[in-house]
């Protein structure tokens, strides 16, 4: 039970930690100043949420690992985030579509988690849900602007959507861990999250005049620690200071 709770909490944390790291790459490179600030603010929100979850995961595990130990001292195979969040920033359409597909999943998940039988997860979700609402609004507005904008922006948004769609299957995968958590009333039924996600996607894509790609090949493996070729580079950047100077402080 506690092993499954640890694994489940870590999955929630890793999605946010890696997405935060990706969004942080935009710092100083945003297309306009306001968006530079927006993306780094979002990165900060995701990081804060990841910190709460990592700290809790460490407590559940009971081996004395801190949030920093879990973030900086695990190897690639031990990270359990979905592949969606590790995909490169690409052009701005890619960054926005990646966040939109995640936000549309993250918001209903956090809403449902506020009713979790696990008090700490419910408390963390209660805090996150307000920010998640704000994030979805931000990514939806940009996606609509791109899709319903110029021919060029429409084409780029559609290309990003077609490209990243193969990463969406993983968000709703089930396995023994998730089934156990759902049965215990800790995790919500993932099928209901998928319905909510699907409704949001349809609604925003229709307003953006974009076409929902057909479900075909879907990537998998992230939850088991099998990542795309990008993951190692993300971790190298994120972990190299801690690994080069163990215990460093400033």
């Amino acid at each position, binding site marked *: 039970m506690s092993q499954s709770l640890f694994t489940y909490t870590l999955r929630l944390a890793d999605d946010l930690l890696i997405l935060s790291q990706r969004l942080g790459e935009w710092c100083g490179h945003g297309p306009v100043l*306001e*968006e530079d*600030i*927006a993306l780094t*603010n*979002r990165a*900060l*929100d*995701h*990081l*804060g*949420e990841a*910190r*709460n979850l990592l700290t809790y995961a460490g407590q559940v595990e009971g081996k004395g690992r801190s949030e920093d130990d879990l973030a900086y001292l695990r190897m690639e195979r031990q990270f359990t985030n979905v592949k969606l969040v590790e995909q490169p920033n690409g052009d701005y359409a890619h960054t926005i579509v990646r966040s939109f597909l995640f936000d549309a999943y993250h918001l209903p998940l956090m809403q449902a988690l506020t009713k979790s039988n696990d*008090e*700490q997860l*419910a*408390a*963390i979700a*209660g*805090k*996150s*849900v*307000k*920010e998640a*609402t*704000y994030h979805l*609004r*931000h990514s*939806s*507005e940009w996606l609509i602007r791109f899709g319903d904008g110029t021919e060029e922006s429409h084409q780029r948004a559609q290309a990003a959507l077609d490209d990243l769609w193969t990463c969406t299957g993983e968000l709703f995968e089930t396995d023994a861990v998730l089934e156990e958590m759902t049965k215990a009333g800790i995790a919500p039924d993932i099928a209901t999250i998928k319905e909510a996600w699907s409704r949001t996607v349809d609604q925003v894509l229709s307003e953006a005049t974009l076409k929902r790609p057909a479900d075909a090949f879907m990537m998998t493996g992230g939850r088991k620690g099998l990542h795309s070729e990008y993951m190692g580079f993300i971790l190298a950047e994120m972990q190299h200071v801690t690994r080069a100077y163990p215990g460093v402080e400033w």
Partner: protein
Amino acid sequence: MKDPEIPAINVLELGVVRGVEVEESGKAIITITPTYTGCPAMDVMAADIKKELLEAGVPEVEVKMSLAPAWTTDWITDEGKRKLKEYGIAPPEKTADIRALKGEQPVVACPQCGSKNTVLLSLFGSTACKALWKCQDCLEPFDQFKCL
């Protein structure tokens, strides 16, 4: 004890102090709640509270972080909101803004000239808790404390 990022307002006015307990030994336990999950000012606030109390002669201080119930901008006191406005930040409206949650724009008055002819420039501002607006009448850009 001021908010390190908005030095116009103190931690009580901001509504982040949720509990103060003093044990028989004289040890003080202060419970605070984060405004935004990723707000970097929280660690500074916790450290500042500890330092101030120790300097004031409290023998032992513990600062606890509590997540639930989640902080809302409704916990900012009226005095706090007045000070925010004086400082040039449009205060959050009352109600944990249902319109904002539904994606509708709130009407925000310019803290400089009071005009309601304002426009949202960016959902995200200079700190995690603020959005960036501009007044169409006096043309001043200004921060707005986001409603949560």
